[in-house]
């Protein structure tokens, strides 16, 4: 991997971020309805002077290009303005919400890999058997499931009928987690708080399972086909003829190479989980970024929408950069 490639991708990242910021800004300004009037309500006591004063205080009376330059300048310095509804700095709100989204995304990725990889390997080793056919059929179902519905059905089964798992929020209401990283499970471990850890983990199970299912299906599919391809390679035949044990061949030789495409999948998954957890966070009342985007759009809280959407998009773009770089490190044949 050359330095030129890295620089090229970083420049690209900056350009794309600028385009995203411009698009989000333009889209929000095209929205019918004035945010300040919406915020102050249709109260008789509110005069035009009040509205004008508020607008001036928020900087909304300035020409659009000045507002945009201020917005981009804010992005660079980390000052994203004030939330119109919550009257708190957008940057603080985002910082409070980000760990919840990351924690769910990481848990969902673990779920999808733990399910997807072994299932894919088994399907490949037993190609065209009944087991393989069953796995591939379930696979199709996994890919066709509406995730929010799956979440509600899991709540129905494990929360309502069986009563095994909590279905809403990140932790029990009576527990106040220590705030170090914002990831409740990690914080509970750091403070050796067993009760908090148990509660945080229990709250994670259903959302992570819901978010991880579709990707488990995709991973199983990719692992299966890439295992099938790798098992036909010459070096695998060499390994067999050397008389190595099957387990060694499968895990030591084949799987290692069959897992290379997983980097792309993991990147795609991380990107879509960080940004696409909107629906699942809503199902489980998970206090993450996705839910905040929904609420802020509904509440026409422009500064917050702007900040949250740009943050999610930048995360998404950055992950695809990391994937490209990781790929060229793991597979030296890939060169730019």
């Amino acid at each position: 991997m050359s330095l030129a490639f890295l620089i090229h991708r970083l420049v690209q990242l900056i350009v794309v971020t600028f385009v995203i910021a411009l698009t989000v800004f333009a889209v929000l300004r095209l929205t019918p309805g004035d945010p300040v009037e919406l915020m102050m309500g249709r109260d008789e006591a509110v005069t035009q002077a009040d509205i004008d004063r508020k607008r001036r205080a928020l900087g909304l009376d300035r020409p659009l290009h000045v507002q945009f330059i201020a917005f981009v300048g804010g992005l660079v310095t980390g000052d994203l303005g004030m939330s119109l509804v919550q009257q708190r700095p957008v940057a603080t709100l985002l910082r409070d919400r980000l760990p919840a989204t990351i924690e769910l995304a990481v848990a969902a990725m673990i779920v999808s890999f733990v399910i997807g990889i072994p299932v894919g390997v088994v399907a490949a080793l037993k190609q065209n058997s009944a087991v393989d056919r069953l796995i591939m059929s379930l696979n199709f179902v996994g890919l066709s499931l509406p995730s929010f519905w799956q979440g509600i059905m899991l709540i129905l089964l494990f929360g309502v009928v069986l009563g095994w798992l909590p279905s809403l929020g990140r932790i029990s209401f009576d527990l106040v987690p220590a705030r170090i990283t914002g990831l409740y499970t990690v914080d509970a471990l750091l403070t050796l708080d067993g009760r908090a850890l148990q509660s945080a983990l229990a709250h994670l199970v259903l959302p992570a399972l819901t978010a991880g299912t579709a990707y488990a299906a995709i991973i199983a599919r990719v692992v299966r086909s890439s295992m099938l391809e790798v098992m036909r390679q010459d070096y695998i035949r060499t390994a067999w003829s050397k008389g190595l044990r099957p387990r060694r061949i499968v895990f030591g030789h084949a799987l290692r190479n069959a897992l290379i495409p997983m980097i792309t999948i993991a990147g795609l998954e991380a990107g879509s989980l960080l940004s696409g957890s909107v629906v699942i966070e809503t199902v489980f009342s998970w206090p993450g970024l996705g839910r905040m985007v929904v609420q802020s759009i509904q509440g026409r809280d422009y500064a917050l929408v702007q900040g949250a959407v740009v943050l999610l998009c930048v995360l998404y773009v950055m992950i695809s950069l990391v994937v490209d770089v990781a790929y060229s490190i793991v597979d030296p044949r890939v060169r730019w």
Partner: protein
Amino acid sequence: MIETVPGAGAQDVTSAHGRRRSSLRHLLGYPTAVFGLTVVLAFVLIAAFAPLIAPFDPNQGSLLRRLRPPVPLERSLPAHLLGTDQLGRDVMSQMAFGARVSLTVGIGVVALSGLVGGLLGLVAGYFRGRTDTALSRLADWTLAFPYLILAILLMGVLGPGILNLVIVLSIAGWPHFFRLLRAEVLVEREKAYVEAAHALGAARWTVMFKHIARNVAHTFFVLATVRLGLAVLSEAGLSYLGFGVPPNVPAWGSMIAGGQNYVETAWWLSAAPGLAILLLVLSVNLLGEGLRDAFDPRMRL
């Protein structure tokens, strides 16, 4: 714009036509694909004849009959096969009308994004140069946005509505058609038959639309089924979040959202529409898999 050159395309037309027919017959050899096709057609019929199938007005409820379970269960009413919701509206009638929303949006999105993305991909791949660079950059920028976030943002601005759903999901989805068609055309344009058509004096637009387009059509249709399933899921997700259809339009996604509040007592309210989404999307995917195998067994998306 499209010029027809007599004779130049005739050979190709018949052969492409013949291949398509044999592909269709071939498709019927796949039981899963036949199953998929049958279920999709059944949903299309339900959607088309929803007013005849639905026993009740989907928006008209009777509070005396609220929250009744589906038929064989205790307290159920024979008139309401799938039960009633919190306002006493008939679930089956809402489901029938919900099929309209899902299919209209799904097919609308595939048609619009497929047409726009496909045409632009054809043009970019065939002419290359500056047009290609500009269009590819636009596609990259669109794909830099997370799909659902872009859709929510635009729906929040445009407001709920079926037409808006089609437009928004097409804006977010056209680059997929663009990229695939562009890549396919880049390969096709170097082939001998294209050279031959040019040598025979066929106009560039004729070569592009009559010769190349026919040879990349099968790839297009396979992608179209994949995107159809995704469009149905996206519409359901947006309607679930409240960014999809207006409140008075029954859609499967918004039915699930309404039913979630009653999941402890009236599970059928969220279970039934979800099963319908699953069945429709599953059938579309099975059909797509069958199409892929029928057109070209080596093709992988």
